[in-house]
Every structure is written in structure tokens, then in C-alpha cells.
């Protein structure tokens, strides 16, 4: 069996499971944010439920609309806040306490290898980076999970993606995923799992593995996953003292599809409007003038991402033709970025810094685009109108390309920056 099948058979108490089999799994953790969570709160009361299956296995994290930009959003906060208090949920993260839900789930030790985690947010697939099976579900199902602690799944077919080679400077997990998206197509993994492995993935940090798994949903996948190793164990042990089981794919596992990628000659990649699989290397783009650059999100808002960008921006200024918005993915990252001088570097370069949230990424607030504007973003989705007006254009890139592009005002390969100490 592969790792996903092993996790699902453990969770369903079965010796073995096979693709397309419907199973009833025990859930280890469940997470909601305010946008999906207010529906859960309302449904929970509607059905007359009084208590959840286990308050210690639930996280409630405000992140999409923080701080509340409108009275309507504040009302949504109020519904969710009262719900969390009523149910005595210890894992409740209010404004200023957590940050982007997936980052908080990882850094507060809610994610452990071998577990089944569901979140009412599509980027819940991020936790596969620690060898967990995690997937996004809707609010009605989440209400059922809150009450019963169980959920049905269809065991997915799995695509194995083997990656070898060494990344060049300024190339990394984001460029790799965009190359995968180009290969698979944006609905090419619908209902399936993506298992990332090979020497390049083994060499990657947990932060980079998060970027990879986070974007699995962008090709329709039910889950993205990396087999746990020493890096996984070190990360998890630094966050929690809970025990966990390391499950890995059997050596002789056969996959529905296998893709081999060599990153040795990979250059920075860009997803062009309006689809994540519309991918081109920066070198083929020509001059794309930018009105805004956004660095942040559950995809690329971690300390490693901010460090890469700050190194490029240090002592320089954001081009006056454009604007840069930097949003650390969590309060914890914000503190680390302050203590290590990154925030100062960004502010001195002329960037706007916002509190950890999903705000601009989904077109909510804190960096919305006007009609006709073009943005380069380190986020995960470039659907029409995703970050604002339907007539705005959105390109996706790594943090390195975002930083270099902030200096020039157009999409730029960092290795082409003149006068830069590369």
C-alpha cells in the first residue's frame, strides 16, 4: 500500500484499503476558519447538537477577514467567537493570536504524521508535508465531523512524483509545483492524491514541502503528501510532545501514474492568467509591467520565504512604478521577522506590511486590485477576479521572483538583476 492507503486503513480500522473503496474514517483533528466556520456554528445549532466529539481535537482560527474590514465581517467573527467559547475549544485563535489557519495548524503542533485531518478550507492539503492525510471539506460535513468525529472518504488513486536534481539559486518548491501543474493540468489530479518524493524532496525543508503540498488542490487533488523522515520528526517534536506513527509507502507500491522531474536546469516559473497550469519560464514572458506585488499566504508567507525576499531587497527600494505588500503568514513568523530585521528591510524598501491574514489572496481586503491592474503574487490561485476586479490580471511566482520584480516593476528573474550581489 502507499502512504495514503496506510493512513486511511489505520483510520478506518481495516487491514487494507484499495482505490475507489468508500471507507468511514476516524478524524484526528478538524479545523474551521471564520468564513466557513460561521456556517458550521449556525448548522450546529440548527440540528440541535449540544457538544462536540472532542474539544481538544478542534481548532477554530480567524484568518480570512482579520482585523474585520466591515461590520458584516465583524458579525461573522462574533458568531464564530461565541461558538468557540460556548464549546470551550482550547484551540481558538482570535484576531492577533494566530494567523493564516494552515500555518497555525503546523506551528502549534496540531499536525502529526499518520493522522487524518480535515479542514473547512481547500488548502488543508498543506499538512501532507508532515506525512498526514489532510483534505478540505465543506461546512455541512464539518458540522457532522464536529458531532461524530468521523467522515467517509473514497480512497484516492495516487500519482507519484519523483523529483531529482539540485535547484539553482533562486529556484525552489514553487517553481517545481508550477512545473508539475503544467504537466498535470489544473483538473488533472481531481479525486486523486499526489505523493512527492525523491532526493530533491528529501533535501527540502518542511517549509518548502508545505509549499508543494499546499498547491496540490490547484490541480484538483484530494491530498498532497510527502513521506515522513528525520526532518519531519524534528519539526513535529519541536511543536508537540504527543506521540505519532510514521507510515511510509511500501517499496513495491504501484502507482496509477508516475511522473519524474529533474530540477537541475529548472529556471524560475510563472503561472500566467487565468490558470495555474498556464505556466511559462520568466525568460519567455517579455515585459510584464506590475501594479502590485504580493508576498505572503499559506503558500509562501513563511520565514524562509521572507528571508529569500529580504536578501534581494536589502538596502534597495521598491520601484516607484509599483507597490509591494508583505504579509507574514502568522504572528509567530511576524515576531521572527521583526527579531531578525526582515520587517525593517521591507519597510525601508518601501513595502506595506499587514497583519497575518488571507486578506488579499482571496480578494477580501488589504490589497485588492482595480480594473486593468496587474499583480504578481506568491499565492496559489490566479482565477479571474481572484484578487479583486474581474478585469485585473494575476501572475503567480516564488518569493525570489516577487522580490526581484518589486525592484524593477516588471516580472524579473532574480539572476538577471544588475548590480545585485548574486
Amino acid at each position, binding site marked *: 500500500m502507499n502512504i495514503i492507503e496506510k493512513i486511511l486503513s489505520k483510520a478506518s480500522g481495516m487491514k487494507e484499503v484499495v482505490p475507489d473503496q468508500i471507507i468511514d474514517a476516524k478524524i484526528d483533528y478538524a479545523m474551521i476558519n471564520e*468564513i*466557513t466556520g*460561521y*456556517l458550521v456554528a*449556525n*448548522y450546529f445549532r*440548527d*440540528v*440541535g*447538537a449540544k457538544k462536540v466529539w472532542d474539544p481538544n481535537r478542534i481548532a477554530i482560527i480567524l484568518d*480570512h*477577514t482579520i482585523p474585520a474590514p*466591515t461590520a*458584516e*465581517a465583524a*458579525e*461573522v467573527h462574533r*458568531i464564530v467567537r461565541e461558538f468557540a467559547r460556548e464549546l470551550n475549544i482550547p484551540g481558538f485563535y482570535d484576531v492577533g493570536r494566530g494567523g493564516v489557519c494552515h500555518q497555525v495548524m503546523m506551528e502549534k503542533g496540531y499536525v502529526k504524521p499518520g493522522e487524518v485531518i480535515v*479542514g*473547512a*478550507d*481547500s488548502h*488543508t492539503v498543506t499538512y501532507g508535508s508532515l506525512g498526514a492525510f489532510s483534505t*478540505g*471539506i*465543506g*461546512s*455541512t*460535513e464539518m*458540522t*457532522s465531523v464536529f*458531532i461524530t468525529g468521523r467522515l467517509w472518504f473514497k480512497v484516492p488513486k495516487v500519482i507519484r512524483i519523483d523529483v531529482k536534481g539540485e535547484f539553482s539559486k533562486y529556484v525552489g518548491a514553487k517553481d517545481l509545483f508550477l512545473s508539475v501543474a503544467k504537466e498535470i493540468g*489544473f*483538473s488533472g489530479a*481531481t*479525486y486523486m492524491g499526489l505523493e512527492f518524493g525523491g532526493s530533491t524532496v528529501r533535501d527540502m525543508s518542511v517549509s518548502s514541502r508545505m509549499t508543494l503540498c499546499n498547491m496540490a*488542490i490547484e490541480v*484538483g487533488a*484530494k491530498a498532497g503528501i510527502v513521506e515522513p523522515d528525520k526532518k519531519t520528526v524534528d519539526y513535529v517534536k519541536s511543536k508537540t510532545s504527543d506521540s505519532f506513527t510514521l507510515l511510509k509507502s511500501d517499496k513495491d507500491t504501484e502507482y496509477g501514474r508516475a511522473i519524474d522531474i529533474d530540477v537541475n536546469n529548472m529556471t524560475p516559473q510563472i503561472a500566467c492568467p487565468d*490558470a495555474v497550469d498556464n505556466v511559462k519560464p520568466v525568460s519567455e514572458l517579455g515585459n510584464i509591467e506590475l501594479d502590485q506585488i504580493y508576498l505572503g499566504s499559506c503558500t509562501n508567507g513563511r520565514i524562509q520565504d521572507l528571508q529569500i525576499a529580504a536578501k534581494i531587497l536589502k538596502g534597495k527600494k521598491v520601484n516607484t512604478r509599483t507597490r509591494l505588500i508583505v504579509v507574514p503568514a502568522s504572528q509567530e513568523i511576524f515576531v521572527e521577522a521583526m527579531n531578525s530585521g526582515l520587517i525593517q528591510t521591507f519597510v525601508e524598501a518601501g513595502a506595506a506590511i499587514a497583519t497575518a491574514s488571507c486578506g488579499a489572496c*482571496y*480578494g*477580501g481586503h488589504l490589497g485588492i486590485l482595480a480594473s486593468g491592474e496587474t499583480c504578481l503574487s506568491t499565492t496559489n*490561485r490566479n*482565477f*479571474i*477576479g*481572484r484578487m479583486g476586479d*474581474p478585469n485585473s490580471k494575476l501572475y503567480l511566482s516564488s518569493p525570489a521572483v516577487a522580490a526581484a520584480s518589486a525592484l524593477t516593476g516588471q516580472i524579473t528573474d532574480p539572476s538577471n538583476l544588475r548590480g545585485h550581489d548574486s
Partner: protein
Amino acid sequence: MIVDANALKYGDDINTDLIIPGKYLVITDEKRLGEHAMDGIDPDFYNKSRIGSILVVGENFGSGSSREQAPISLKNAGVKCIVAKSFARIFYRNAINIGLPVLECLDLWNEVRESDTLSVDLEQGTITNERTNRTFQATPLPPFILDIIQQGGLLNKLKDSL
């Protein structure tokens, strides 16, 4: 369970941000969510759909976000059933869970014009175009999914179990 209504037809890859853009996610009134359904692709959708419609769409309908506001807005805009060539995973489950019938049928799309009257038999998984009098077979829904839809959604089943 038979569903009758006029068809509204759209293409492939209609994602959740087109069905209900992010700025509307804080609207807690379902009726008002309905008024903004498909805002990203057809601002006149609500007026066309409010008297009742069957959506006939292409591949990968509902890709992207887990927002249940997507099927909720469609249901409140008068959509009685969605027939797609294929659905994205989370949207598919969400629609069923709120009691909005969804069927997968590859052949129907080419044989429907906007405003054709369709009749859907959910138990049989068949769709009849009353203009051409042709019937198409969709992938039948498994009994446990049909049961959720017939009870009006998963919450009604949950209520009964509590």
C-alpha cells in the same frame, strides 16, 4: 424524484471564485448570497435563474475553494439541479450535503440549448430534453448519496440521528 426546469448553459472550469467571489463570503443571509450567484461570470444570472433552473455545465465545475457558499448561492438563486461533464471534488460533496442534486453526464451538454426545458429523474439518473424528446443517461447516484438528497441534505439526516 423528478426535477423540471429550464436549462441555463455555461462552459468548462467554472471555479468557486466565479460562482461566488470572495468579497461576498461574509454575507450570512442565504437569500442575498443567491442574488450574487455566478457574479464572476454572468451578472444577470440571478434574474435568469430565480424562477427555477437546471444548470448544464462542462468539465471541472466548482474547482478551487471549499466555500459552501458556492452551492448555497446557486440553490438560493433557483438552481434545482446541476448536470456537469465533471465536478471538482469538494464542490460535489458540498452540493449533495446541502441537498442540491448533481449529476455527471458527458453527452448532454452538446444537445442542450439555453432555455430548453429539461426533466431530470434522479433515481434513474436520466435527463430528458423536452424540446428534442431525447433522453440522456448520467452516472446514477449511489443509494447513500440519493438518500442525502432526498432528505434535503445531510443536516436533516444528522437531526434524525441526534
